[in-house]
Every structure is written in structure tokens, then in C-alpha cells.
């Protein structure tokens, strides 16, 4: 069977133009997708059934048993942590938030180690942005700052920017100027019209210098800023000011480097400054397929995009204090529920190690590094493969992921709902 206009759930691009050939419970061909999409659909091996760690190894258990034990672990915890959420759909995320408020947990999503700093920056200065189609149809200047779309978002350039034909930019490759700022000359840099190679950690200084130049204060800028010549900075500032429509895309190069959210804030303030001269927008290159959706769902339900602490009954938010890595690092939490993510692989050692010290339950379709740190691993559907649901693209456009095959697993929203119902039953109102 051929399926058209399928949504790839892998990265924040959420490309929705894939063509899939399906035979029974397998995807046998992926067209239009990048290699990440191909691997997502075709190389999808699962944990067959729920497992529980014993003193010596692992044993299979039933879903009912796994759900009951999970509810018991959460019910008794003094400071449970619910983490993950970015590779599943909004329906599961909603239930997750309800569980968190029910049991007084901290709930955090993977943006905490991804674009959490971007959120902190936006909370300080806002976010002048747009949907990706605005960029595709209008932008004549594209800046990739601290990101490498060729590796991390392989179709970003062909669908939305450099190589995409837009209404006002019919000859994209000729009409768009591409600027890349990075510490490494990566593959994306190789196709740039301007490449600014910067010393590691120099983002903030370079952004400040560009802002000052745009404000007409170039006289005080030193000859070199973080390894970039003043001439090149002035040239780039002029390209930006003379753009008809400029778009900055930034990645983890800004959010993870020294200064973290201050780098992002500075990039946003540069965008703001440029908006006084021409049209300029800025957007984070969100990673996981539905990480932005987890921010959206958390926000409308709790008021905060990530790192929400319900310990006091109300919602409290303070990244650095209520973020997953910090809570694990300080050894605060005494139980953890991990959904659709892999902190075992993605968290620094000390934080990951705490998961092995406490009862940790993992709900995820795949065996991953966190499996080894868990007490129970409950397999479920993978959103966008054998489960449908809502995801939010990196620019906030909500897209319905499709169910393309049936593999006989329960949906994670359904597992979570059962846990929630058990908790409600046992804890009363």
C-alpha cells in the first residue's frame, strides 16, 4: 500500500510530504524523506513487551503489572520527576501534565537540554519570528548561526530556505545570500556565501558587535572580535540591513555554549535592531519532532513551557532549580517516569547516574540507554509510525502525525491514562 503526504516525526521540520510503501506491519520504502526519515520508518526495532529489572537480570511482565507498579512508585514518591515527552504526541503530553499535578511532581521536557535557554531568552525579550513559509516565500538573506542543518535537519534548506523556490524568490539559489556562523567549518558552512568562523564561546561578543554596528557605533569595535575581522562584521551587517527579508536560524551552538541563554537573547536583540531597518526574523532549530509541542501543551496547561514543579500544588518554574538535570544532579528526586526520550544517553553522567539509584520507569518504544538505568521499561507505540497525534513544528505550526502501520502496541497516552486513573482511584480527589 502506498501512503501519501506522510509526516516524518523525527525532527522539528516535521516534513509532511513523504511517500511510504507499507507491507503489513512494515514500511518497506520511504520516498522524499532524508536518511533520518528512512531510518525512522524502516529501521524500527522495538522492545517486545514490558520488562522489569530483577537482582540479576530482566524479566518480562504484563502491561497491567507494569502499570500498577508504576502507579505505586509514583504515588509514594516525595519528589517524583516526569521527564521526556518530546517524541510523543500532544495527547500523551497532556496526560503527563495531569499526572504531575496529581502527584506533586516536577515535569520537564527535553527542551531543557536543547532550546531551554532559547525559551529563557524569549522570556526576557520576546521572539520576532514567523512560520517557515514566510522565509521560503520571501527571504533573500538566511543566517545559520551555531547550527548545522545538513546534519541535524537535512531537509531544512531544501524545503524552507537556501534551495526552496519561493513566491518572491523564484530563483532561490541565486537570489538568496546564505551566511553561516560557527566554530567549525561544517558542511553547511561549505555552501555559505559568507562564513564567519568564530572562536569557541565567542557568540555573545560577536552578536554585541553586530548590534553596535547596526546602531551606527562601529567606531568602537576592535579590529577583531572572537577571531572575526571587523571588516567582515561590517560587511555582514550591511548585507543584513540591505536585505528585503532576513531570517536567522540558530541552534545548539548558541544555547549550549558559555552564556547559554544570553547568547540567544543577544541574537534576538540583533533581530530587533535589524527590524528597525528592514524585515528580520529569528527562529530556533528545534530538535525532536514534537519538542515544541511539549512546550505548547505545558504552557497552556501550566503556564510554563518546561521545568514545572508542582510540589506545592501550584505550578512553579525556575530553570536551574526545577530543570531535570539539576534535580538529578542534586539527587533530589526519589522516583522518575521517563517518557519518549533517553536521558541515559543525553544527560551528563552524574545526572544520569541518579536515575539508576531510584525507581525509574521508562515508557518508550525502543530499547535505549535509559533502559539500563530503569526498573521497568514499558514499550508503546511510536508517534507518527503506529500512532497518530498532534505535533508542533519548530515554527509552531501544528500538524497531525499519521498512523502508518499497526504493530500491536498500546499508545503511550493510553498507558499514561491508566496510570493516571489508578492514581486518582487510590489518592481520591
Amino acid at each position, binding site marked *: 500500500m502506498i501512503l501519501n503526504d506522510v509526516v516524518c516525526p523525527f525532527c522539528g521540520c516535521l516534513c509532511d510530504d513523504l511517500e511510504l510503501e507499507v507491507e503489513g506491519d512494515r514500511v518497506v520504502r520511504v520516498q522524499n524523506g532524508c536518511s533520518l526519515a528512512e531510518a525512522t520508518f524502516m529501521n524500527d526495532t522495538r522492545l517486545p513487551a514490558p520488562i522489569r529489572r530483577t537482582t540479576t537480570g530482566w524479566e518480562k511482565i504484563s502491561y497491567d503489572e507494569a502499570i500498577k507498579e508504576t502507579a505505586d512508585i509514583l504515588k509514594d514518591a516525595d519528589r517524583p520527576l516526569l521527564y521526556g515527552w518530546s517524541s510523543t504526541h500532544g495527547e500523551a503530553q497532556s496526560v503527563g501534565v495531569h499526572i504531575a499535578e496529581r502527584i506533586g511532581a516536577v515535569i520537564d521536557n527535553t527542551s*531543557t537540554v536543547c532550546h531551554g535557554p532559547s525559551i529563557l531568552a524569549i522570556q526576557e525579550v520576546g521572539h520576532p519570528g514567523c512560520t517557515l513559509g514566510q522565509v521560503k516565500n520571501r527571504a533573500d538573506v538566511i543566517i545559520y548561526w551555531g547550527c548545522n542543518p*545538513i546534519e541535524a535537519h537535512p531537509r531544512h534548506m531544501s524545503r524552507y530556505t537556501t534551495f526552496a523556490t519561493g513566491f518572491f524568490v523564484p530563483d532561490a539559489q541565486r537570489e538568496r545570500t546564505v551566511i553561516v556562523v560557527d566554530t567549525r567549518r561544517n558542511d553547511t558552512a561549505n555552501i555559505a556565501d559568507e562564513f564567519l568562523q568564530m572562536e569557541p564561546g565567542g557568540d555573545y561578543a560577536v552578536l554585541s558587535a553586530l548590534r553596535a554596528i547596526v546602531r551606527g557605533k562601529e567606531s568602537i569595535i576592535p579590529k577583531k572580535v572572537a577571531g572575526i575581522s571587523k571588516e567582515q562584521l561590517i560587511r555582514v551587517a550591511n548585507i543584513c540591513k540591505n536585505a528585503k527579508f532576513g531570517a536567522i536560524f540558530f541552534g545548539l551552538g548558541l544555547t549550549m555554549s558559555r552564556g547559554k541563554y544570553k547568547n540567544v537573547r543577544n541574537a534576538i536583540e540583533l533581530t530587533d535592531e535589524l527590524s528597525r531597518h528592514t524585515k528580520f526574523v529569528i527562529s530556533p532549530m528545534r530538535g525532536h519532532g514534537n519538542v515544541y509541542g511539549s512546550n505548547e501543551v505545558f504552557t497552556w496547561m501550566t503556564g510554563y513551557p518546561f*521545568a514545572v514543579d508542582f510540589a506545592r500544588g501550584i505550578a512553579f518554574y525556575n*530553570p536551574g532549580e526545577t530543570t531535570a538535570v539539576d534535580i538529578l544532579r542534586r539527587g533530589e528526586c526519589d522516583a522518575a517516569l521517563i517518557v519518549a526520550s533517553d536521558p541515559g544517553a543525553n544527560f551528563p553522567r552524574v545526572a544520569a547516574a541518579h536515575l539508576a539509584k531510584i525507581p525509574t520507569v521508562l515508557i518508550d518504544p525502543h530499547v535505549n*540507554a535509559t533502559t539500563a538505568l530503569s526498573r521497568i521499561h514499558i514499550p508503546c507505540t511510536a508517534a507518527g509510525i503506529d500512532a497518530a497525534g498532534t505535533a508542533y513544528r519548530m515554527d509552531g505550526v501544528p500538524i497531525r502525525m499519521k498512523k502508518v502501520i499497526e504493530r500491536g502496541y498500546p499508545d503511550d497516552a493510553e498507558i499514561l491514562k491508566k496510570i493516571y486513573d489508578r492514581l486518582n482511584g487510590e489518592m481520591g480527589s
Partner: protein
Amino acid sequence: MKCILNTGRTVPQGTAVEHKGSDAYRTVASACFLNPVDMMLLGIENGARIRITTLTGYVVLTARSAEGVTRGEIFVTIGPYANHIISSETHGTGMPDFKSEWVDVEPTGESVRSVGELMEEIGGLRYDPE
């Protein structure tokens, strides 16, 4: 040799990300890209094993030469190998220093461990699907 550790996503890492037990994943996640000049200074060839040490601990990786990496920097894909040595300090922001950890790089004869072994080192227990 003192270097700054940079991490990031790559296509091979992305395609293997849901198969963390696989050899393919071990190969991509444990690759450490260095500037060729730095490799020369360390006296190592492409494919040699290197030991990366921080205050948090150490990990053994496979050296790969890459022109695009500046001298004094090493690049490792986001994942359990890099995280084995990254500090969990977040400077009050929730975000660890995934791109600015100072590390010590030296050649070694030790072998590259599996993801499962890394997890067992921090208290986990490997699950091997039958």
C-alpha cells in the same frame, strides 16, 4: 593536550539513535573528531584510540581527523560517550556545558566500551534482547 569539547548532532547519529545497542551507534557516538595538526601533535593516526579526561571522569574514543575542526577543539556527537565526561553543572540555567567543557586528550591502549558498559558503570544493568 588541553582542548574544548564541542558536541552536536550528525546524520549517522540520528539514523542510529533508536538503536543504541548497535555497533553502528557505538561507532558514530564514540568517534572523536580532531584537527589533523592536533592529531599529529598527539602522534596518532586516524582510528587510534584516545582517552578524554575531565573532572567528571574519562572515556575512550576513536580519533577521526577532520579539517573543519579548529585546533584546540574536539567534536563528539551528542550522546552517552560525550556525556560520560561532561559535568552536570548548569550555571543555574538547566543546560550543561555541552559545548564548552575543557578536556584532556591523550593516546591510549584501552578499548572503546559499549553503551551498555557505560551505563553499567553508572549503576545500570544492560538489557540484551534475546
